[in-house]
């Protein structure tokens, strides 16, 4: 049985390889098509393999809807779209090698004028400098690590290290973690009345970044940080860590991490270890996979409260164009989209809008057009890109889990950005 299995798997691998070969042949032929049929291409690079898949599927659907709304045409040019995967099955998460290959592929295809991605801040670190050098615009629907754009918030060499040409070619439609970390901290201190916090992070760019912001805000607001630990995101359990947490007796535990870096396991071990304090996680866990991985027991109210902050409003709470998007999405796909779908949609819309405004349809003109985005009437309200490439939108929300579904608790943020 195992022999036949391996043989059929070999066959599958062989057919995948030949498909890739065929695809690269097509790519090589693309420049010729560009002159004749006037086709511009947008690509996205998101983790499509692994537990982030249901989140990224809805982002991709959002991008596709933005293209369809314009009938697949912008200013007389046909828009082609390629949905690339930056995860590998070995990691079940984004993979630096795959992300770098995706960036190279996009750069070498002259028809490509826009790169939507990435979902993970760590992945952006890989492709940002490559795309910057090549002069290809990058619009992220999901990166929230502050250091990617804002000087003085991350490592000392950030964000210059991602901009080798010195020009701004990277933009994001989602508010960054300096706001989210501060909102999470303010929620723990103000709404939960916590005086002592235990901070955990997954040692990734995003997770450690937001935990750092939380620590800074906590210290500024007089909350005591009783522990700050980088955990092993692949450990089988965190029982011993839970004992350490119990010994420190915090009022709240915050984990800067994602579903893919074991947030659900940390929660389960806390609850199994009779530690019922509120467990707060950032937007990297704002996806169904988090609830599925944690299971009913750990998420039940008797086990202790669970909160998830998110850089924006959940789909059900959107108003105006955003609410319309959710309605259309639901009609088309039969379900309420995951939280980041609207950012995929917004990233697609803002990019198409810039292509529309650009005088010539070359990469440089499109970068300039994206950077010039001002008072954009989007699904997330009216916003602009600032000088760093960040959105001026600062709306945040705090959510919890109820009966196996995310439930909105309150909107936050707006003016809160004092973490720096």
């Amino acid at each position, binding site marked *: 049985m195992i022999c036949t299995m391996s043989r059929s798997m070999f066959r599958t691998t062989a057919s995948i390889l030949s498909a890739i070969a065929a695809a690269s042949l097509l790519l090589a032929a693309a420049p010729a098509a560009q002159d004749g049929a006037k086709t511009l291409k947008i690509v996205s690079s998101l983790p499509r393999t692994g537990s982030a898949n249901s989140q990224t599927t809805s982002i991709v659907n959002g991008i596709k809807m933005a293209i369809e709304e314009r009938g697949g045409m912008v200013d007389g040019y046909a828009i082609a779209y390629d949905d690339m995967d930056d995860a590998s099955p070995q990691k079940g998460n984004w993979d630096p090698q795959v992300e770098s290959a995706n960036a190279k592929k996009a750069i070498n295809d002259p028809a490509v004028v826009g790169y939507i991605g990435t979902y993970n801040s760590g992945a952006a670190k890989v492709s940002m400098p490559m795309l910057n050098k090549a002069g290809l615009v990058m619009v992220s629907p999901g990166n929230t690590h502050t250091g990617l754009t804002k000087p003085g918030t991350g490592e000392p060499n950030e964000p210059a290290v991602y901009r080798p040409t010195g020009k701004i070619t990277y933009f994001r439609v989602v508010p960054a973690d300096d706001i989210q970390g501060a909102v999470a901290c303010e929620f723990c201190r103000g709404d939960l009345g916590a005086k002592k916090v235990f901070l955990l992070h997954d040692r990734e760019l995003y997770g450690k970044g937001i935990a750092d912001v939380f620590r800074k805000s906590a210290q500024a607001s007089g909350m005591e940080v009783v522990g700050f630990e980088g955990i092993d995101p692949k450990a089988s359990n965190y029982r011993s860590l839970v004992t350490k947490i119990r010994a420190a007796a915090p009022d709240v535990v915050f984990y800067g991490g994602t579903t893919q870096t074991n947030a659900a*396991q940390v929660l389960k071990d806390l609850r199994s270890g009779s530690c019922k304090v509120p467990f707060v996680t950032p937007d990297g866990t704002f996806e169904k996979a988090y609830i599925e991985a944690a299971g009913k027991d750990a998420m039940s109210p008797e086990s202790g409260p669970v909160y998830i902050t998110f850089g924006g409003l959940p789909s059900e709470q959107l108003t105006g164009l955003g609410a319309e998007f959710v309605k259309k999405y639901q009609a088309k796909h039969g379900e309420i989209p995951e939280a980041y779908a609207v950012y995929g949609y917004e990233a697609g819309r803002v990019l198409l809008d810039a292509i529309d405004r650009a005088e010539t349809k070359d990469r440089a003109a499109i970068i300039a057009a994206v950077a010039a985005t001002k008072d954009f009437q989007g699904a997330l309200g009216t916003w602009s890109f600032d000088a760093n490439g960040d959105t001026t939108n600062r709306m945040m929300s705090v959510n919890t889990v109820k009966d196996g579904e995310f439930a909105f608790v309150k909107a936050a943020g707006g003016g809160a950005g004092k973490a720096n």
Partner: protein
Amino acid sequence: MQRAVAAAEQLAILALARADGLPAFAADGALSSWEVFGQQLVTGLSNGMIIALIAIGYTMVYGIVELINFAHGDLCMLGAFFALTAVGALGMSEWGGAGGAVGLVSLLVATAFFCGALNWSINRLAYRPLRKASKLSLLVSAIGASFILVNLGLFWGGMPMDVFAGGNSSAAPKAFPALVEPEPAAHLGDVIVSRPDVLVLLVTVPLMGALTWLVRFTKLGKAMRAVAQNPTAAALMGIDVERVIGATFFIGGSLGGFATVVYSIYNQTVSFQMGYRMGMDAFIAAVLGGIGNLPGAVLGGLLIGVVRAMSDQYIETRWTNAVVFGILILILVFRPSGLLGAKLREKV
């Protein structure tokens, strides 16, 4: 409207929580340093016993065919998927009381049989044809078997069942129902011994006892020891060497099956990638104790479990892997054959 009500309700809960200064949520007070130590010891021993049970599978196979069976951890992973499928198909998480206990025992036995049979088949198909080939071919074959098992797990994760979250995302970690509720079974001061901790103890200790009895006092055990010492001589004495090797694979695999059920209940998570971590910890334990040596594997497993817990507590979580591998290097430098792996086996 309903949403607004729900949100208002949440805010009310928050307000309540705030008014009381979170009494309901607070941990049961600070632990004294001795209680912390005791709790870490409990955690370390529980994790260690699971590791030990898996490590026995490595060490038995190594002892008899000198093969590091890299597929062993992934075999355990498939066992966990098998157990989760059974739990989902039979709705086992709803069974309570005596039915639940019988169900749990049946689940343990069925998974053990599944893993044992799978390990036996892997030996039959991937290792036995290479018995006369160089050890390296055997090792590469084991790595290949490991890849196949991981990918089988990836497919299996896409199973359209409720317990697999509808199979929406095959690579996502799945929640394993808490068949044994993670509630305290005993309090020693503030040190909590939970019911899963007790389960670990109740499963692993009798199994290790049974294995010791089997190896020391049965005919099969005698044959296993003979084959380990010298397969040619054993064959000359009329021992069916291949049958003994097959039995070893079956027993090692079924211990892994027991371990994986306990592991899944203890951690409440299964994922197609869990085999790597399970296998890595167990392999280190086997080497630490002296590979090929049964008590050594148990000692190594317990040691790794306890060292991990203590390092998490007293050093820092991010150094734990470095500490474990550091100890492994030190022990191999000063005792190359492991802690107990002195002169029990003599092979050229």
